[in-house]
C-alpha cells in the first residue's frame, strides 16, 4: 500500500477514535529534551545555530545559542545519530573560547629577541605581504620545500583546503602531531587490517575488554561511544573489564579493574591468546575469521596450518609466564581468556595506556590478533572498520607543480621503521641536526610544538635559535607557549567563528554528514587560517578557485551527491546534521566477493606471492611484465592500487591496505615486520629502560581527565576551574618507602630533567608508578591557564575571581621525545624516574 492509501485509511479511521482505550494521559505538554534555550534573565529565546565542536577530535555536532550577538551556551545536537543530543564538559566549556579575554585579535610581529614577549601590532596586509614575499622567493629559487607547514589538528574541509594550498605552492614538508597521539595504534592497525580507525560497536557488545583506554573520559570518538557504553553498562547489558595502571574513571565504572605494570599489556594479551588457542576456544567464529587471516608466510595456508602456527608461536606465552611480567594473576588471565572467547559479541578496546610504549604498535597488533582469533572483528558488537561520510570537494588548480620535500618529518635516522604518520616530536632535533636540510620558513597551525611535545627545554632552545629556524610564523587564536616564541603571529578564529564540513566516524556504522558554521562572526581582526591561505594564494599568483572556507564548503555541498539531493549548503546550514535513513550499518565488508569485471579491468593482475589483485597501471608501473617481476610488495606505493584479495579461488574485497603494501588478508603474520627486522607475529619484547631500572625507581605515566584536552582547553575558565592542578598519584606502599605523605612537595627526575610538584597518595594507582596528568603547568595561554595575562589581554570581571593560584606541573619537561622503533609513537608511559620528598 502506498503512502496516500495509508493516509486515506487513517483519515477515515481517526474519526472513529479507536485509540484512547489504553493510555491515560495527564494532558501535559511533552517535555523537550533539547534543541532550544532561553535566557535566565529575560526569558527570551536564544538563537539556535547548529554547528560542530572542535574541543577535541571527536568533533561532535552541537547547537550554539546566541544572545545579543554573544555566544552564551553550547549544547548537544538532538538530531545527531552520533551523539543523540548529549555533550561533554569540554564541549560545554567551548562558550569560553570566543570570549577568552586573552585572545589575540590582531596580527603581531616580534619586537626584540625571540621570547622577550615584546610585540607590535601590524596589519594583515603587512603580515601577509611579508610572508608571501618570503614564500615567493623560495619558490622562484626552486626551493619551495624550505617552507615547512606543521599542523597539530587539521581535519575535514580545513585539511583539504589548507592541504591544497601548500600542494599548489609546491611543498610537501608538512608535519602533523599524530606521533604524540596514536601513531602506535594506527600503525598496528595498518599492518593488520589496513585502515587506522576502529569503531567500537557498543550498541551490540556484551563484553568489553579494555587495555589502557580511558574512553569514559577521553577518546577519539568520545561522546558518541562513551554515552552508548555507559547506557549499556548501567542497564546490565554488558560486562566491562579494564586493564590499567591507574584507576581511571573508566576503570572505576568497570566490573573489574586489573592493575597492570606499565608497558606489559602485550604480555597479558599474548597470554590470553595462548589460552584461547591451546584450549581450542578459537573454534566457531574465530575459525571462520581465520580464513581471512594471514598467520604464516604462506598466504594460502590451510586453517590447520594457521592454527598450528599460532599455537606454536604462543606456546611459551602462558598465563604463568605473563603473571611474572604483568603482575596480573595467572588464574585471572586464564579466566578472562575464556570469557572473552565465549561471551559474544566481545569488543576489545585499547588506547594510549597500552600503546604509548616501546613497541606499542606490536601491542595493538596483539590486540587485533586477540580480536581475530575470537571472531570479534568487523561484526556487530565488536571493533569494526570505522565508517565516515565521504565528501567531495573542489580540487584546486588543474596543473599543480610536483611538490618537493625536505626529508625531515620522519624523525632522527633510524627512529622508526614504519613512520607511516611521521615522527613530529623529533622535528626540532632533526632541524638542529640539519643533515637533511632546514626549513627557512616554519609555519605552525593549531599546534603547540613547545608545550605538546616532550623535552620542553629542548623545544624552546631550538625554536628560539634563529640560525636553525630563520623565520617562524604561527596561526593561533591564543597566546600560548609556542606563539610566545614566534616571529609572526596570525590570529586564527576559534572554531566557534568558522566554517567547515565535517567527517568524523560514527559509533553505529552509519555515516553522518555535518557542518560547522560561525556561531558569532570572527572577532577583532581574526581570520580562519584557511581564508588566510586563499589570500596568500592570490598574492602568490596561484588562485585556488575559491576565496574562502565558506565558499569551499558551499561548493562541497553542491559536489557531494547526498547533500546536494537534500538541498545542499542551505539545507545543511539549517539542519546541521544529516544521515541517510535507509543506510544499513556496515559490517563484514571484507568478505564481500568482487564482481568478475573488477578483476578483468585493464591493468589488473594477480600477484602470486600474496594473492593480491592489483592495478599495475594505477601504481605507475611500466608494464604488466615488470609488475609481475618486481611484485606487489616491492612496488612503491602499490597499496594505492589494491583491488582485492584472492582466497581459495574467490576474490574478496578483503582488508584494504592504507599506508603499507600489505595483502588484503587480516595480517597477524606480517612480512613487512620481518623486512624491518621485527618478529612477524606479535611478540613480547621487554622495554629496555624498565629492564634496567633500579629497584627504588618508578615509572612515570601520564593521563587525561574528562574536562580537558591535552593542551588546547586550559584557557576555558569553566574547565580550568575544575582541573588546574595535577598532584602526582603515588600508591601508599610506594609512598611509604620514600617517606612521602599526601600533599608533600616532591621532585621527580628523569634523564631529561627535574620537575617539582606535590604528591597525592592514593590506592588508585599501582605500586612502582607515579602518574601525572596532562593539561597543567602552563606558563602562557592566558590568565586562567597560567596566571599570566597575554599581551593585549582585556578586562574580564571573572579574572578577579580566579581563586586558584596553583596551575600545576607539566610532565613534558621530563619526558623524552623518544620514539617507538616500530611506529615512531612518543613513548609517553615509559619514562624511568627518581622521586624524592623535598
Amino acid at each position: 500500500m502506498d503512502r496516500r492509501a495509508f493516509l486515506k485509511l487513517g483519515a477515515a479511521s481517526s474519526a472513529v477514535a479507536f485509540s484512547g482505550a489504553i493510555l491515560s494521559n495527564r494532558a501535559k505538554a511533552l517535555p523537550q529534551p533539547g534543541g532550544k534555550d532561553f535566557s535566565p534573565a529575560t526569558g527570551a529565546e536564544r538563537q539556535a545555530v547548529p554547528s560542530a565542536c572542535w574541543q577535541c577530535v571527536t568533533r561532535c555536532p552541537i547547537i550554539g545559542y546566541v544572545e545579543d550577538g554573544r555566544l552564551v551556551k553550547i549544547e548537544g545536537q538532538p538530531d545527531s545519530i552520533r551523539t543523540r543530543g548529549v555533550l561533554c564538559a569540554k564541549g560545554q566549556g567551548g562558550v569560553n573560547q570566543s570570549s577568552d579575554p586573552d585572545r589575540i585579535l590582531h596580527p603581531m610581529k616580534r619586537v626584540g629577541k625571540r621570547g622577550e614577549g615584546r610585540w607590535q601590532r601590524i596589519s594583515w596586509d603587512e603580515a601577509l605581504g611579508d610572508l608571501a614575499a618570503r614564500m615567493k622567493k623560495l619558490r622562484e629559487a626552486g626551493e619551495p620545500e624550505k617552507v615547512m607547514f606543521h599542523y597539530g589538528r587539521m581535519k575535514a574541509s580545513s585539511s583539504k583546503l589548507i592541504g591544497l594550498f601548500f600542494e599548489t605552492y609546491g611543498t610537501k614538508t608538512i608535519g602533523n602531531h599524530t606521533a604524540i597521539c596514536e601513531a602506535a595504534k594506527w600503525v598496528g592497525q595498518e599492518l593488520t587490517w589496513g585502515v587506522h580507525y576502529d569503531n567500537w560497536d557498543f550498541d551490540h557488545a556484551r563484553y568489553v575488554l579494555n587495555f589502557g583506554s580511558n574512553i569514559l573520559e577521553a577518546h577519539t570518538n568520545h561522546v558518541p561511544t562513551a554515552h552508548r557504553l555507559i547506557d549499556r553498562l548501567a542497564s546490565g547489558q554488558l560486562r566491562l573489564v579494564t586493564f590499567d595502571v591507574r584507576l581511571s574513571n573508566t576503570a572505576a565504572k568497570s566490573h573489574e579493574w586489573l592493575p597492570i605494570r606499565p608497558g606489559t599489556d602485550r604480555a597479558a594479551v599474548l597470554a590470553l591468546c595462548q589460552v584461547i588457542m591451546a584450549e581450542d576456544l578459537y573454534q566457531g567464529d574465530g575459525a571462520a575469521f581465520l580464513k581471512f587471516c594471514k598467520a604464516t608466510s604462506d598466504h594460502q595456508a590451510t586453517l590447520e596450518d594457521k592454527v598450528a602456527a599460532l599455537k606454536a608461536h604462543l606456546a611459551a606465552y602462558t598465563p604463568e609466564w605473563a603473571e611474572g611480567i604483568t603482575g596480573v594473576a595467572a588464574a585471572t588471565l586464564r579466566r578472562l581468556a575464556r570469557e572473552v572467547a565465549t561471551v559474544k559479541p566481545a569488543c576489545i578496546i585499547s588506547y594510549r595506556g597500552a600503546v604509548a610504549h616501546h613497541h606499542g604498535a606490536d601491542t595493538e597488533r596483539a590486540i587485533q590478533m586477540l580480536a581475530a582469533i575470537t571472531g570479534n572483528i568487523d561484526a556487530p558488537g565488536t571493533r569494526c572498520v570505522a565508517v565516515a561520510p565521504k565528501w567531495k570537494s573542489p580540487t584546486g588548480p588543474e596543473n599543480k607543480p610536483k611538490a618537493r620535500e625536505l626529508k625531515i618529518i620522519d624523525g632522527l635516522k633510524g627512529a622508526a621503521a614504519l613512520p607511516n604518520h611521521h615522527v613530529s616530536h623529533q622535528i626540532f632535533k632533526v632541524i638542529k641536526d640539519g643533515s637533511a636540510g632546514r626549513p627557512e620558513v616554519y609555519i605552525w597551525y593549531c599546534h603547540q610544538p613547545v608545550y605538546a611535545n616532550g623535552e620542553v627545554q629542548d623545544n624552546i632552545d631550538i625554536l628560539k635559535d634563529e640560525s636553525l629556524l630563520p623565520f617562524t610564523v604561527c596561526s593561533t587564536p591564543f597566546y600560548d607557549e609556542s606563539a610566545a616564541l614566534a616571529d609572526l603571529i596570525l590570529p586564527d578564529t576559534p572554531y566557534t567563528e568558522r566554517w567547515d564540513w565535517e567527517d568524523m566516524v560514527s559509533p553505529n556504522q552509519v555515516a553522518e554528514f555535518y557542518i560547522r558554521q560561525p556561531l558569532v562572526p570572527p572577532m577583532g581582526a581574526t581570520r580562519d587560517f584557511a581564508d588566510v591561505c586563499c589570500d596568500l594564494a592570490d598574492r602568490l599568483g596561484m588562485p585556488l578557485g575559491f576565496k574562502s572556507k565558506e565558499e569551499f564548503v558551499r561548493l562541497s555541498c553542491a559536489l557531494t551527491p547526498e547533500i546536494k539531493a537534500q538541498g545542499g549548503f542551505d539545507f545543511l546550514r539549517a539542519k546541521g546534521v544529516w544521515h541517510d535513513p535507509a543506510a544499513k550499518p556496515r559490517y563484514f565488508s571484507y568478505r564481500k566477493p568482487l564482481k568478475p569485471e573488477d578483476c578483468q579491468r585493464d591493468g589488473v593482475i594477480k600477484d602470486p606471492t600474496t594473492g593480491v589483485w592489483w592495478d599495475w597501471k594505477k601504481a605507475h608501473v611500466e608494464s604488466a611484465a615488470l609488475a609481475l617481476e618486481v611484485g606487489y610488495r616491492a612496488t612503491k606505493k602499490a597499496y594505492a592500487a589494491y583491488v582485492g584479495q584472492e582466497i581459495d579461488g574467490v576474490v574478496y574485497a578483503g582488508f584494504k591496505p592504507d599506508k603499507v603494501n600489505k595483502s588484503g588478508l587480516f595480517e597477524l603474520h606480517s612480512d613487512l615486520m620481518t623486512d624491518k627486522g621485527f618478529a612477524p607475529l606479535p611478540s613480547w619484547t621487554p622495554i629496555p629502560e624498565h629492564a634496567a631500572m633500579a629497584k627504588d625507581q618508578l615509572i612515570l605515566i601520564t593521563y587525561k581527565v574528562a574536562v580537558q584536552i591535552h593542551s588546547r582547553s586550559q584557557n576555558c575558565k569553566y574547565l580550568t576551574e575544575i582541573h588546574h592542578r595535577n598532584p602526582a598519584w603515588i600508591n601508599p606502599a610506594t609512598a611509604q618507602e620514600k617517606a612521602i605523605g599526601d600533599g608533600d612537595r616532591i621532585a621527580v627526575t628523569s634523564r631529561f630533567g627535574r620537575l617539582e610538584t606535590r604528591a597525592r597518595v592514593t590506592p588508585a594507582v599501582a605500586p612502582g608508578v607515579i602518574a601525572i596528568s596532562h593539561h597543567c603547568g602552563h606558563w602562557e595561554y592566558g590568565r586562567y591557564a597560567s596566571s599570566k595575562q597575554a599581551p593585549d589581554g582585556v578586562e574580564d570581571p571573572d579574572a578577579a575571581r580566579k581563586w586558584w593560584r596553583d596551575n600545576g606541573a607539566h610532565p613534558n619537561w621530563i619526558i623524552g621525545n623518544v620514539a617507538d622503533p616500530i611506529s615512531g609513537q612518543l613513548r609517553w608511559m615509559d619514562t624511568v624516574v627518581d622521586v624524592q620528598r623535598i
Partner: protein
Amino acid sequence: MQENEKKLLRRELLNRIGLGAATAAVAVTLPAGAGAAVARDPVHYAMVIDTRRCIGCQACSVACKAEFAVPLGATRSWVEYVEKGTFPHVSRQFLPRLCNHCRNPQCVNVCPTGATFKRAEDGIVVVDPEVCIGCKYCIQACPYDARFIHPDTGAADKCDFCLHRVGRGLVPACVNTCQGRARIFGDMNDPASAVAQLIATQPVTVLRQGMGTRPSVFYIAADHSDPRETRVPSQYVRVDTHRRIQERR
C-alpha cells in the same frame, strides 16, 4: 533594557512562569471511556540521580556554569568524586550535587525577609535578589552548601531547577547534557512520571537524611561515604569536590 525593567521581569518570571507551564499544556481530547483520569495534585518538581549512570564527566557542572554565567568561585551544581579502599580493591563513585529543593527547606525557615521561598505551584525553591539583603543566614543554614552570595547582586544565589527552561517545556541544562542520562527530572506528584516511578520502585536515598530537610533530589546507588565518618580510622576515604570549597559540607 533598563535595570529596573530587567528586575521586574525577573520577579514576574519567578512568580508566573510556573503557571504558564500548566496553561500552555496541549490538551488531548480523549473519547469518553478512556483510561482513568488522574486527579491533579499540585506539581512538585524533583530530580532522581542514578549514579550507576554517572561517569563523572562534569558536563552537568559546566553546562550549569555556562547557562547562568555563574561567577568563578561559585557553583550551582557540581560533581564530587568519592574514592575509597585499599589497593587493589579501590572504588571511585561519582556524586552529582545541586540544591535539593527541600520540602522542609532550612534556607526558607531562616530567611528574615522572605526573599527565598518555595513556590506553591511547583515546589522550586527560589531567591528574589531584589528582596534579599545578603545577610548570609541562609548560606549558613543550608546543610548542603548549595548557596552562595552572587558577587554582582550581593544576593543569595543557587540552583533553581532551570526555572526559565522548565517553565517552557525544556528539561534543565544539566539533564539536557548528561551523557549517561543519569539525571531524571519531573513531577514527583504525577504517578505516571519517571521520577515518581523511580522513587516508588528503586532504593533511593537522600543526602543527610537525618537533618529532616526532606530533599526533592533522590539518589540511586549513591556512595554516601564521608571522610569525617569513617568507622575504621585507617580507612582511606577521599572526597574531591572540584570546587573552591574543597571540603564537603
